[in-house]
């Protein structure tokens, strides 16, 4: 049982991972993540890469929606901007992959800032509608700006190559996605210990009082949009390298809802929530697929109803979490931790 956490310095108090137990488990996690590609099969690595991409994008959306309080339903479209940037750069200029990813992030950040422009005037649901509108307009651009995006037939992307190594299998891409994910998630966690991140939280809690306290609203809201889009852009770029073909249909509107759902299911406004939500929402369809595989000898048309069942479970998860566990998986995780901290006594 832990009685209390003794802090002797300010640095210790502000540390991201404040207890020794936590740090020890993090080392275990890191070792496990590094060891994963050597023990897992191709399918699990594929899932791991996909989860990594989703975590980056969800963390980005969490910065905007969970921490700044601006609801966006355009995250998938922003990912599309990143994916197309990578595809075009790779195909036309052949620039190195890491540079492409960086440029994809910057490009998407610019687009995101433009979409965020109405955010000073409109709030809440009107802003959500504005982002829906932006995502449909972006979709239109993808489908119809044929000279760049190759229209509905899309662009094939060459495999990423870093330092002369060609990363085409999930096993190789994992080593690109994992470090990027780790760096970006840590950066996001750190952001909320800085002046800028604190300003975001102040805006979320009450934007007018934030303004009274001297936070320039427009600048910070645009910054939040740009940052969140940067994450989406990098995730989209990785997506392009992962699936190797980018079409306008790759980033449908439901995909945006998927990310918002991941933020909600995971827990709005916590970094851990974004991670847990992305993992959970990515794995649910796979588990369903597995269940269909088990059921198909008993239920002959199990495969046929897979897609609608997926839609239903998706909706039911959103409803269920919002009604019964509004703080999401992160809260469940916190409860579990507290149980072990207080163990012989009841919480």
């Amino acid at each position, binding site marked *: 049982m832990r009685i209390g956490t003794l802090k002797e310095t300010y640095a210790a108090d502000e540390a991201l991972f404040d207890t020794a137990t936590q740090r020890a488990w993090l080392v275990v996690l890191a070792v496990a993540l590094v060891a994963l590609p050597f023990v897992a099969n191709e399918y699990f690595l594929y899932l791991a890469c996909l989860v990594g991409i989703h975590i980056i994008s969800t963390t980005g959306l969490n910065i905007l929606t969970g921490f700044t309080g601006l609801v966006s339903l355009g995250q998938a479209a922003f990912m599309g901007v990143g994916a197309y940037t990578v595809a075009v750069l790779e195909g036309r200029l052949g620039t190195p992959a890491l540079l492409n990813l960086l440029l994809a992030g910057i490009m998407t950040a610019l687009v995101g800032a433009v979409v965020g422009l109405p955010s000073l005037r409109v709030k*809440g649901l009107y802003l959500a509608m504005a982002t*829906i509108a932006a995502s449909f*307009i972006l979709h239109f651009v993808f489908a119809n700006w044929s000279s760049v995006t190759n229209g509905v037939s899309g662009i094939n992307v060459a495999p990423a190559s870093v330092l002369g190594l060609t990363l085409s299998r999930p096993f190789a891409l994992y080593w690109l996605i994992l470090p990027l994910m780790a760096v970006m998630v840590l950066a996001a966690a750190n952001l909320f210990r800085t002046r800028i991140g604190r300003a975001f939280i102040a805006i979320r809690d009450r934007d007018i009082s934030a303004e009274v306290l001297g936070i320039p609203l427009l600048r910070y809201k645009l910054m939040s949009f740009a940052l969140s889009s940067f994450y989406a852009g990098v995730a989209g770029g990785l997506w392009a390298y992962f699936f190797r073909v980018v079409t306008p249909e790759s980033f449908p509107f439901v995909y945006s809802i998927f990310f918002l759902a991941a933020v909600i299911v995971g827990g709005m406004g916590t970094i851990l929530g974004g991670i847990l939500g992305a993992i959970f929402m990515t794995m649910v369809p796979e588990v369903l697929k597995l269940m269909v595989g088990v059921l198909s000898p008993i239920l002959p048309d199990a495969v046929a109803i897979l897609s609608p069942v997926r839609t*239903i479970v998706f909706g039911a998860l959103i409803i269920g979490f*919002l009604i019964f566990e509004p703080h999401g998986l992160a809260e469940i995780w916190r409860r579990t931790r507290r149980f072990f901290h207080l163990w012989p006594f009841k919480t």
Partner: protein
Amino acid sequence: MDFDWLFFFEVTLAGLGNAALLALTGLAFVLIYKATRVVNLAIGEMLMVGAYLFFSFTAGLGLPTYVAIPAALVGGGFLGAVLERTIIRPMLGENAISVFMVTIGIGSVLMGLAEIIWGAAPTALPDFMGGGAVFIFDAYVSRKVVIGFTVSCAVIAAFLLVFRFWRGGIALRATATDQAAAYSCGINVPAVFSLAWVFAGMAAAGAGVLVGAVGGISPAMGVFGLSALVVVIVGGLDSISGALIGAILVGLIEAWAGTFLGGEYKMLATFSLLMLVLLVRPYGLFGTVEIERL
């Protein structure tokens, strides 16, 4: 090439026909928003369920049209009541964004259920309006569009009268204006919430039957709700007249853009309109401007 005025006129009429359906859906939307402050993104799916109920009653059970339509309306109203009671009521007092996400979830569940029950393939509703054309000053208009337009207008007019004169309508408006005051005047506010959802469910089901009759039904027809959403955002979330004017704007712009520029420009045109309106008037054309104080 000179401009074909007759063709333009025909397109405009078709757009107006669509606008009437949009207005009916928008009305259902405004009704829920006014009474309960819930932005209901599932309105398109409620509309789809209404259309499918009608389909089951006529094609499945073989009921005559004049029985099937009221039955579908009752079904839609029942759906609204159930949704309000089981899902929206527990969310009372939560922040607007959570409730809005819950309705997205409802939409997803309804769509999946419809796909399981009725199959994913698009079908046509049994023809109950008759084919043929109606000519208005030489201009050809499909008979279905004319009937849809007339019925929508009649229903909207009926709704407006009900809100103006019926006790329940007055209770609804009182609740919309000030919930606490309405409570203290003896209005049963939770009942008003249910009432709003029942009426909205019926309006959506009616709109669904009309939309389905014109364009066929499929589980994906909930997308129509997105256009209706644009309508109410353009008009202002809490204004019935705004919804009507927004519907006419969106209906016409969709028809013109779809015909003269190509089908893929439809969504682009409506959403560009939305962005434009939001930039100029953040609360829609006729919406109430919220004043925020510390």
